């Protein structure tokens, strides 16, 4: 774990910039959901998780699975910021000669623990990793971020039954509860209703937080680590598109790349934020 006096908001701003650059240069990708999980990923990779960019295959490392794999720009942004690969490579996202695949690929990208993209599968893989730790009597932890729309996939509930059955208290999932999916509000498309109640009914330890507040995120991870015998589900209220004014809370920015004028406006907003936080543009 790193020095916890890292300027987390500033790191988040740098990562948001990477997300924007990646998607704009590719003219393809998923900015909305990616921007919404930046604080969560920053907290995971810069404070919570035991990882070493010089040793990405360390068998005793903590693992992370981006079950909502389409938010790869955010994952690549935080991995680059953390030093798993050069930041300069991020702008080659999705290009044919780049290793940065559109959805996370463990065989292509250093620091990616599981290939994802097809919703529902990542959280099950995370269960497998947590189970492996229990079988090997190792104390590494496993984290996974899911979308709230993703909860519509039945396989997620198979995982939700499995983790408490196998007492995977080394597993902590986070639901990115932004309320939106491609076709509109989750509650209108296919209401997943009370997410905390669902996970409590499946016998998980449930914590509800503001997914952009570092104090709440940190307290939730502490609580998850302290909980014995049950896995933890952190339900994080977030804004899709967070950090770019014209993208916030708009379903349309799920999978659309910004045009040049939008990119320039967004860059200016992020640069302003970076400067405000004492960073370098």
């Amino acid at each position, binding site marked *: 774990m790193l020095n916890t006096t890292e300027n987390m908001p500033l790191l988040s701003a740098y990562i948001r910039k990477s997300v924007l650059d990646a998607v704009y240069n590719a003219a393809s990708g998923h900015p909305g959901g990616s921007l919404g999980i930046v604080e969560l990923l920053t907290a995971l990779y810069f404070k919570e998780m035991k990882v070493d960019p010089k040793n990405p295959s360390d*068998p005793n490392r903590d*693992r992370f*699975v981006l079950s909502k794999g389409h938010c790869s720009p955010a994952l690549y942004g935080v991995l680059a910021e953390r030093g798993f690969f050069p930041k300069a490579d991020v702008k080659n996202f999705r290009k044919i000669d780049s290793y940065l695949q559109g959805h996370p*690929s*463990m*065989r292509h990208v250093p620091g990616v*623990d*599981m*290939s994802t*993209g*097809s919703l*529902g*599968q*990542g959280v*099950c*893989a*995370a*269960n*497998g*990793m*947590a*189970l*492996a*730790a229990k*079988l*090997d009597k190792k104390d590494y932890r496993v984290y996974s971020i899911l979308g709230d729309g993703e909860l519509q996939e*039945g*396989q997620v509930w*198979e*995982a939700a*039954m*499995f983790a408490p059955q*196998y007492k995977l208290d080394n597993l902590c999932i986070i639901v990115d509860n932004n309320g939106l999916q491609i076709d509109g509000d989750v509650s209108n498309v296919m209401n997943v209703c009370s997410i905390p109640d669902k996970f409590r009914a499946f016998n998980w330890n449930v914590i509800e937080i503001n997914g952009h507040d570092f104090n709440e995120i940190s307290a939730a991870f502490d609580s998850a680590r302290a909980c014995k015998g049950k896995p933890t589900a952190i339900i994080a209220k977030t804004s899709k598109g967070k950090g770019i004014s014209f993208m916030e809370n708009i379903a349309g920015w799920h999978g659309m790349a910004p045009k040049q004028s939008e990119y320039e406006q967004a860059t200016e907003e992020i640069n302003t934020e970076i400067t405000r936080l004492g960073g370098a543009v």
Partner: protein
Amino acid sequence: MGDIQTKATRLAYGEALVEFGTNENIIVMDCDLSKSTMTTLFSKKYPDRFINTGIAEANMMSTAAGLASCGKTVFASTFAMFAAGRAYEQVRNSICYPKLNVKVAATHAGISVGEDGASHQMIEDIALMSVIPNMRVVSPADAVETRLAIKAAIDIEGPFYIRLGRLPFPIINDENYQFELGKGVTLRNGKDVTIIATGYMVSEALKAADELKGQGIDARVINIHTIKPIDEEIIIKAAKETGGIVTAEEHNVIGGLGSAVAQVTARYAPAKMAFVGIQDIFGKSGKPAELFEEYGLTSKDITFAAKGLLK
């Protein structure tokens, strides 16, 4: 017929897991079918390394991937319908795309499932699994071959699909048999016509060769236990050296062994071919022996097809 030994390949599988699954890193998973898939034998010997997901096949495949990413060798078992059918995409995206060390060992393949009927008679699994990159597809002919195939799957890293049956199959290999992944086995030499078979149909192919011999036709019989990677050399030789090839499988004639063999001959040595298998229709309930008759999966059907090639 009375003194032919038979043994179910799923039983050989369960026993092989116990025999070869001693390494602490081998994990066996099942979806509430372990008394049928015979993973129950492993679960009794090594309960800590047996994981039951309940009736959740998609979960099993993706969870297996997660275990494999942490250094485990995972056998994931259920019926072929659910392994290759229901959880196809999890096998494809969670296991094969990242090339993880998971062996999908699926039982109750084919029409010999019998009375359960069409919903359980998986006749498309060879096609579905063969068409995924990084996947190896093995269809053992008998219990002897199954035991060695399981050992090979443990020794060789990466994704496998192993197709096992429900019924006892005749044992056609002796204790000296050596299994080599990707290498077909010439069981009988012959120069008039070739019968290439897989799984249960290998024993029917041998019976057909006897029937043909009685009619003055010298048939070569080849067991292709590895559909992918397929033994091109043995197929090309047969195509060049005999008058035609009959393929025989307990599977749809579309997309399985027949198609795989035809792709080799079409490319390298065009040959006259006939395809014995399920003629692209769903199965139904019945006794397996009756179903084989009705669906054209007997030695008589192979003999008929072989003679048709030589007209």
